[in-house]
């Protein structure tokens, strides 16, 4: 196992460097450069030229690539033009917010997906199964940003103004304006309240997918002989389902983790825009529009690392969970 992991890690390094190279050339060969947005009639050519030099843009592309790669390998990710701060600081500010959202959404999606899928499989063909199927298919076909807007309009606007529910959720932001003045408990509640809508928007769609997979996987496992043996032995249904069947059915779900992480990251861009969540997705998109090369490259590089890591973890977990799988 350890050799397998080490081999995968060794293979990940050229993979990530290759991704970084492709990103570099894609971004730098796009039309326009950061100085474009500074051009105004009073700004003379010399000043623009000076700015280009300051940003290191006067060098030919391959020299810039070598410089950038060398700097990156020593941990120097450069300076963000649009934020006027070192790139590392920008990422350190925004990445945790995105991770918070992503991790919460994944956790909720998996927990609920697994539970609902199991219920559907164990109670196949019942009314509960049909209702859940319809509801889950409904959410599965939603684009996440549309769902986000609908959630805002119902759980935030209508809940507060129209129906006057006692619980309603804030439509945007990570914390409220009074956040600094709240007690610790108050702050936790505030954060949680602000997390609800964005996490729901991200996770509802995923939950539906995971539930479907879980249902199918569970149905397959329940048909197996060992389950019938366990039932024949007289074990209570709870033990049969949760102790024996579930663990086997979870195996394919684990591979989904690796698949869903990149999906989640691309989904967070919309969610962050709609909920004014100060996260990495939104920052990255803004950086692309302002041609902030160092930030785009560093941000994409981090995302690529996380995707590769997530896939590696998924593969290792796969082997851990299923003793039949051996890596040599």
């Amino acid at each position, binding site marked *: 196992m350890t050799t397998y992991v080490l081999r995968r890690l060794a293979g990940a390094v050229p993979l990530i460097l290759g991704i970084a190279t492709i990103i570099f050339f894609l971004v730098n060969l796009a039309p326009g450069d950061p100085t474009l947005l500074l051009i105004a009639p009073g700004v003379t050519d010399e000043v623009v030229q000076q700015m280009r030099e300051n940003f290191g843009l006067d060098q030919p592309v391959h020299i810039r690539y070598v410089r950038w790669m060398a700097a990156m390998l020593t941990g120097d990710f450069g300076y963000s033009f649009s934020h006027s701060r070192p790139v590392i600081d920008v990422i350190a500010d925004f990445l945790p917010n995105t991770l918070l959202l992503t991790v919460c959404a994944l956790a909720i999606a998996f927990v609920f997906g697994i539970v609902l899928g199991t219920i559907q499989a164990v109670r196949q063909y019942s009314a509960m199964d049909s209702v859940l199927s319809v509801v889950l298919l409904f959410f599965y076909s939603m684009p996440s940003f549309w769902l986000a807007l609908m959630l805002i309009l119902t759980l935030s606007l209508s809940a507060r103004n129209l129906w006057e529910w006692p619980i309603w959720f804030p439509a945007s932001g990570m914390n409220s304006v009074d956040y600094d*003045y709240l007690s610790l408990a108050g702050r*936790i509640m505030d954060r949680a309240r602000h997390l609800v809508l964005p996490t729901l928007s991200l996770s509802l769609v995923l939950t539906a997918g995971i539930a479907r997979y879980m249902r199918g996987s569970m149905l397959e496992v329940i048909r197996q002989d060992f389950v019938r043996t366990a039932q024949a032995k007289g074990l209570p249904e709870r033990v049969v389902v949760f102790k024996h069947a579930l663990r086997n059915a979870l195996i394919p779900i684990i591979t989904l983790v690796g698949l869903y992480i990149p999906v989640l990251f691309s989904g967070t861009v919309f969610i962050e825009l709609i909920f004014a969540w100060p996260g990495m997705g939104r920052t990255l998109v803004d950086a692309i529009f302002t041609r902030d090369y160092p930030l785009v490259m560093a941000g994409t590089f981090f995302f690529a690392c996380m995707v590769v890591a997530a896939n590696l973890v998924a593969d290792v977990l796969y082997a851990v969970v299923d003793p039949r799988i051996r890596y040599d």
Partner: protein
Amino acid sequence: MNRIVLLSVVTVAAACGGGDSGPRRTVSNEPFCQQVMPAVDAYMAEARAAHPTPDDPRYGGTVVVGGIGELADGMNAAVSSDYQATQHQQFVNLMTLIDYDENGEPRPYLAESWEVADDNTSITFHLRTDVTWHDGEPTDARDVAFTFETVTDPVTAFPNAAFWDHYVKGPDGVEVIDDYTVRIHMQPHAEFLDPFRSVGIMPEHLLADVPREELKQHPFGTQCPVGNGPFVFFSHDAQDRWVFEANPGFPQALGGRPFLDRYVYRIIPEQTTLLTELLTQNVDVYIAPPPDQAQRIIDDPNTELLRYPFRNYVFVGWNARRPQLSDPRVRLALTMGTDRQSIVDAILQGYGTVANSGVPPFHWAFNEELAGGIAYDPDGARALLEEAGWVDRDGDGVRENADGVDLAISVKYNNGNQQRQDIAEIMQAQLADIGVALQPQVVEWATLLQQINTPDLRDFDGVVMGWVVEFKLDDMDLFHSDRIDQPYAWSGTDNPDIDRLLEALSATVDRDEAMDLWAEYQQVIMDEQPYTYFYFPDRLDGVSHRVKNVEMDARGEWLNIREWYIDPESR
């Protein structure tokens, strides 16, 4: 399983929540900020002790203003041109030498009084002596001199360099007479006080040693600004919010500390979300909602819609360098063939006025007689096109010239802007009626800028664009033939009458004298038709009833923020 869940929930919550009580903020780890912010904190403590809050129920509370854009370059007045950023510089954090009253007449602000030399070659400003920077240093003439030298220096790359066309630039243009008296030198020209309404004064003692080319990237702008205005910078979470606190040491003669305790500017990029926040009372003021949200704001019992004429307009710029567009009759026909009033009604739902030049209807220079402008006249347009030699010879619905070239014109607009897309598409439909094949093309913003601004490139026929004017109107960058190779000369206009008028208007100091010139200029623009001017949209703002005494007009949304207060009942 349960214990694991519980443990992770608590960990996550603690990680997010944690910390001690009381307002905490993260001060940027830039050395400049680490040095400057403690001085600001010390000043605030002292000022609070020296100027206790008066016993008036209007004092107190927090106002939250929501907008879709971040304040680009923050409080750095030397490098920024973003509208919302400059508003914060003028009215919130910094001070300008003068500001305008509701009639557009200059009145004292940082400058207590001023004299203009008889020959109009200099202005002597006498500054207030009771203004201090938020770190305790007094504001004096050296700050004004520093600001002037910095913004007139080409190395700084001040975006509105056109402001200083008629001033003596650099250190020769400004003289420090004594601690609170400063003289600016200039050539006689129109509206020479306007730049001093617009540019905030920056602290010399903090920024004089910064090399001018590095000013744009300096943390002063977005991480730790130090101003001298009614609100003191507290914190800035990038892409999220700016927090300011009332300045207790603001001069009593100017009203003393603002009524509000705190002012928060929140950035919410999605307008549906921003509307929801306004309607659920998480945001008190919503900057510039689109016209289709206006009715919602009017109907809600807790909010009202403020609406007033403003200084931006939308137009289609025609590139006269292109052969099909070089004839003014063609450009005039394009305008006549478009029903601009119906576009205002459809796209802006009536919240706007049709434009025929770059002069806003509320401006003193506006020529009332031309208010009718160019009427929608498809027959007249067809006649003009025939006269110019464009006839539909092959019966395909599109006109050709004598060489058989189709009258096909592309119109570019930037993606993400629904209004501009609508304009392009409606124009296409209406102009098809008069035999013009108009092709809308969507282009990403930065790429579009490169295509239209690069002097050798000018890769466009028409472009849908917007333009914001200051109170001093100056179309030199747009239409003067000397500047035809400068970025903003999209129209490629080379008209001696326009050149003459632009130069005369620049140099004429007296407004009455200028009125006739303005009338002539607007007429000549209509004859030349470098652009098809579309409309001046009304500015809309949603304001909660919780905030009182809010005045907004063409000067800006934040103009009297230090007089806003929260209704004591709804605190």
